[in-house]
């Protein structure tokens, strides 16, 4: 019986037959081609620096993905399939497209503004437009890859952060190599190290991941069934996008120059993304508490289970009360209960939509006395 119910539930977070999935693959392939053309010759000319860049990139990937999945989404991490798709889009598709687009637009600003003004302002007028557009496109595509990936502002925020993070580590990689050229090829290892140090330790806290998280939260709000009007959702999404572009403009502009400004700007961006995170998290948890109470009332959760379900630590503590096969069975029940409540986060779903999940939870419960 349990197996029948489990088979009826949608299990894949990513629909590999969707148009959006193949769009993401195609644009990422184009990004790989662009990045390869730009980076491989420099990697071959400076192999030691390239090795340092690769090592730092992998270390950042491990730490950043762990942090984003552990902290950025309330209750539980996004599925791994969505995580890798977001990173792929940010690191390959968005970064590769941005290389092409930025080269074109920077040259336009040089011609329109003149060299003196463009030396100060071209980056601030280029990156917020091109880079925020290509990054946020990834969150929209993720929402179209499957109806299950992006269903709340919290989903949009975490996927935006992951897309931005993928972009950030690949961009750091390219800057680590470009710095060698700007340094005349002298002391290439030290130049790469210095560049990475500045971009990761000093400014990394308020860079691409923060900007994209804000824009992504807006897309999450736009596509989610939050019970709000379409007009309100559109305005919130546009507002978040403009805020992300503003953060990027501040980051790249000569406003707040000098060392103090270089340190202050990432901190300002970090404060903005944390403010958005607090609002998104509070709304998500409020909705979670609401559906949790409703499911407790209909018997899908006990009060004890409802209390333990919303936090990673309390879920682990709850399971520790069981031993051996009982713990395995309880973990299965817990996973289904989590899926049931996640399913109910969007509002306006028909009353019967969650029924298969409730039935799966009921079927998975160990029968008393056996």
């Amino acid at each position, binding site marked *: 019986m349990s197996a029948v119910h489990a088979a009826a539930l949608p299990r894949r977070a990513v629909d590999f037959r969707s148009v*959006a999935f193949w769009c993401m693959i*195609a644009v990422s392939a184009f990004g790989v081609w662009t990045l390869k053309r730009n980076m491989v010759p420099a990697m071959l000319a400076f192999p030691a620096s390239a090795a340092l860049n690769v090592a730092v990139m992998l270390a950042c990937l491990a730490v950043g993905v762990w942090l984003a999945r552990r902290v950025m989404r309330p209750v539980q991490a996004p599925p791994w399939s969505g995580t890798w798709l977001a990173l792929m889009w940010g690191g390959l598709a968005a970064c590769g497209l941005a290389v092409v687009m930025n080269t074109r637009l920077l*040259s336009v600003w040089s011609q329109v503004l003149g060299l003196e003004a463009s030396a100060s302002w071209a980056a601030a007028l280029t990156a917020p437009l091109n880079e925020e557009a290509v990054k946020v496109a990834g969150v929209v595509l993720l*929402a179209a890859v499957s109806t299950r990936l992006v269903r709340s502002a919290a989903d949009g925020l975490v996927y935006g952060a992951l897309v931005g993070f993928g972009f950030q580590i690949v961009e750091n990689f390219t800057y680590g190599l470009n710095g060698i050229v700007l340094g*005349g090829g002298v002391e290439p290892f030290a130049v790469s190290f210095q560049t990475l140090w500045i971009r990761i330790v000093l400014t990394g806290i308020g860079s691409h991941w923060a900007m994209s998280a804000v824009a992504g939260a807006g897309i999450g709000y736009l596509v989610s069934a939050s019970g709000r009007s379409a007009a309100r959702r559109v305005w919130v999404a546009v507002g978040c996008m403009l805020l992300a572009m503003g953060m990027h403009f501040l980051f790249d502009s000569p406003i707040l120059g000098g060392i103090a400004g270089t340190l202050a700007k990432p901190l300002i961006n970090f404060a903005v993304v944390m403010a958005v995170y607090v609002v998104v998290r509070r709304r998500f948890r409020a909705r979670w508490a609401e559906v949790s109470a409703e499911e407790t009332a209909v018997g899908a959760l006990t009060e004890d289970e409802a209390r333990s379900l919303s936090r990673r630590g309390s879920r682990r503590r709850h399971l520790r009360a069981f031993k051996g096969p009982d713990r395995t069975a309880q973990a299965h029940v817990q996973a289904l209960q989590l899926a049931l409540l996640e399913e109910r986060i969007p509002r306006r779903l028909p009353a019967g939509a969650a029924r298969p999940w409730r039935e799966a939870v009921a079927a998975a419960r160990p029968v008393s006395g056996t």
Partner: protein
Amino acid sequence: MDDFKRAGNAVHGARRVWVPLAVVGALLALTAVEGLLGRALPEAEALAPGTVVEFGADRQVSAQVGEGWTLDEAASDLNTGVTLHKGDVTVRLDLVSFDAGKPDGVREMWDGMAQVLKIEQYAGEDVWLGDPIAFDTKWISGALYGNLQVGTDIGTAFVMPAEDGGQAVEAKILGPFDADQGDWAEATAIIDSVDFEDEEADA
């Protein structure tokens, strides 16, 4: 209007087909528009004879051009370097800063430039750099130059260190074999005019 149905996500049904296509289409359109804008605008600005071009983060390097030179705005960034054209001859001037560690003399700067040129070689370009020869200009002493070939273009590469050794101008003159001799001479005159701002004099 219930635009969510059973999905809980507004991108469902037919939208899952046209939304991704529209997103990718919009990105391609933005890329194309930016490319077309660049092509529609004039790439080079004509410079009056005697114009002094200043570049570097603090505009600390200057070079003077003769008659008929143009500044390639699309290929120039005053923070790092400029590209100048006359006829078939191109002069590229780059300021390099040795922030991560001062090189041990101008020869190390030359070797660094040679290694950077290998990037073009690995990208499939035919690049050849000759042995360096010492030279001085009116403003800079202890510089090096050597023959350079990039693809079908020939010319000369230069490394001109600042007095404190913390930065240098790396220059390249390139053009086809049959470029006008007068243009070559004027390009060399630009190299001779390169100067670092004298901080002591300013103070």
